């Protein structure tokens, strides 16, 4: 059951009505039932997967917790470490196996496996690190793993943040439900009106005959598509969850306003970045072998030795992020590229400082805009690698970027009307982002002015209803991040 289907809207509406009419004690059970209905709808064999993952996460966490409470520290540490590595090995082994089968035998991945697997492994690691006590009631843990709004494409939540809310009790709060529904509508606008419309042109531009400037246009179109698609889907998930009184962590904070790559990866797919930082970056950088390596390296080249753990951990993290997206060479390259740019920009910071001290433009607004544009184009070129499984093809096209070539805009399956809608849509998204950057939540601004709010909501509804690319004559645009 995809977010963009009538059955999902019906499912959400019915759930909201029941949710606020039953005694608060039973709300979490209702959510559990709803999550499993939602998941079973996508295929019974997927249900087996999530059940087994939940069961093994529950068992592993209990075993680690019990092992840690054992008699002396030494054996406790050793035994719990064994259980941890066994659990991680099996789960990530299984995830890798599914990805291999997906790549080589196009066996479809169980829906949302990459997301709920990472979320449950985060829970097990938190138990191992002692920051939380394992959940005794398996059903409550099952709800944490399979809470349906975040199931399909995240955000990846931490147990400490989500579990208390899931198991808490909520009464009807008009403002909260209205905010949630407004955010869902905003998500549908970005997904149906913009992302799915421009997707037609992206598909056409992928054709081998488009090289030169068209490749650059492709990278920009793809940026708009993936932004509308991913942030739209996340808005629908967070909005629905907000209407249910449960706040999920933000996954995007206006990423195209970032001025450097470190900032970009603090604004794009935040929860995956946070997961990787806490469980891969830190673990690698402070692990025993890394310490020994950095000590011996420091003897030979003192300055470099100090930076070694950071760079090694960075590449390890980006290698994992690449694999998370897929095990085809282009995703690995994508991961390494990101890691490389981060390390280079880290290394060049002293150079930047010298540059800024000589040219005091740093505070000038136009310089900020220039940096944003530079970052937007750079990230487009890195992101474009996602689109071409054959990396050679991608670089060949990249090479031709500066040769002049006409871009056949009107032959890409989009008419003048479509381009008009896209331009207005992007303008609306830009204004909303600027408003959010300056004044915080737009919905809060509208909350006092009822008349304006009704007009905006009706306008958005009509835009989605009339200009959305859905239904007969449009091929159902599945979410890009559904395939991970």
């Amino acid at each position, binding site marked *: 059951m995809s977010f963009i289907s009538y059955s999902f809207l019906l499912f959400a509406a019915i759930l909201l009505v029941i949710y606020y009419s039953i005694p608060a004690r039973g709300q979490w059970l209702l959510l559990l039932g709803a999550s499993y209905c939602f998941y079973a709808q996508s295929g019974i064999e997927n249900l087996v*997967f999530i059940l*087994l993952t939940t069961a*093994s996460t529950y*068992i592993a966490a209990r075993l680690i917790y*019990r092992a840690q409470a054992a008699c002396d520290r030494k054996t406790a540490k050793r035994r719990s470490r064994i259980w941890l590595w066994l659990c991680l090995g099996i789960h990530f082994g299984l995830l890798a*196996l599914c990805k291999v089968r997906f790549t080589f035998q*196009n*066996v479809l991945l*169980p829906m949302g496996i990459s997301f709920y697997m990472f979320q449950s492994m985060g829970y097990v690691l938190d138990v191992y690190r002692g920051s939380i006590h394992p959940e005794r009631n398996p059903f409550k843990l099952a709800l944490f793993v399979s809470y349906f709004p975040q199931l399909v494409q995240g955000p990846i939540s931490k147990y400490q943040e989500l579990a208390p809310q899931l198991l808490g009790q909520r009464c009807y709060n008009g403002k909260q439900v209205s905010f949630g529904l407004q955010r869902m509508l905003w998500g549908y606008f970005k997904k149906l009106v913009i992302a799915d419309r421009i997707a037609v042109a992206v598909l056409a531009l992928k054709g081998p005959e488009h090289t030169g400037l068209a490749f650059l246009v492709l990278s920009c179109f793809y940026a708009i598509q993936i932004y509308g698609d991913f942030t739209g889907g996340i808005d629908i998930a967070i909005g629905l969850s907000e209407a249910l009184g449960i706040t999920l962590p933000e996954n995007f904070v206006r990423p195209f306003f970032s001025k450097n790559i470190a900032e970009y990866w603090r604004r794009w797919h935040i929860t995956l970045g946070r997961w990787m930082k806490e469980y891969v970056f830190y673990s690698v950088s402070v692990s025993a072998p890394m310490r020994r390596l950095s000590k011996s390296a420091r003897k030979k080249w003192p300055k470099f030795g100090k930076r070694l753990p950071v760079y090694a951990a960075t590449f390890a993290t980006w290698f994992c992020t690449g694999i998370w997206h897929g095990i085809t060479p282009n995703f690995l390259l994508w991961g390494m590229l990101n890691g490389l740019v981060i390390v280079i920009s880290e290394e060049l910071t002293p150079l930047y400082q010298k540059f800024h001290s000589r040219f005091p433009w740093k505070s000038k607004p136009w310089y900020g805009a220039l940096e944003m544009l530079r970052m937007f184009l750079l990230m487009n070129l890195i992101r474009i690698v996602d689109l071409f499984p054959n990396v050679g093809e991608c670089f060949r096209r990249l090479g031709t970027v500066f040769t002049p070539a006409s871009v056949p805009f009107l032959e890409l399956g989009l008419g003048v009307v479509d381009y008009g809608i896209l331009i207005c849509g992007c303008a609306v998204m830009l204004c909303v982002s600027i408003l959010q950057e300056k004044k915080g939540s737009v919905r809060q601004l509208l909350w006092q002015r009822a008349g304006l709010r009704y007009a905006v909501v009706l306008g958005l509804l009509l835009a989605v209803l009339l200009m959305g690319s859905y239904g007969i004559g449009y091929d159902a645009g599945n979410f890009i991040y559904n395939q991970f």
Partner: protein
Amino acid sequence: MKKISLAALALWIIACLWGCGASDAPSKQDGFAFTYNAVQITPGAQAEAALEALGKPKSYTEEPSCAFDGMDKTYYYGSFYLSTYPLEGKDYVLRIWLADDSVATAEGIRIGSGQGEVEKAYGAACFNGSNAFVSTKGDTRLTVILEDGAVTTILYEAIVQ
């Protein structure tokens, strides 16, 4: 407690491996094609290129389809009929009907071939029990009809999606 957890984990691994093999998406086969004077015509594909390559037909007719856009056209090239259907302003190959034994299918079957030859070429599985072999490949269908043991009709059709 230890034994139960080990058993649970073992069971779990087996189940997952089974789960992983759950659904195989069949890869797309390419369909039948008919070649005449080195011009390959595939049912379901756009007809423009083939029509140009085949040159002027011996005769041609067209009919409006029931209530809709454009014409269903049929071209006669002496040894076969080529019919097209319109979709969004372009003509697509609907059907190729072999008219005489001067032309044959890629597998060498022509008007007059024996039932044995047809069975060897397309396999007994696609025999409909009475008088015809119907085999489907990709989005195309090849129908070979026999009367008292000899092939009388050979027909390539596009399975219109």
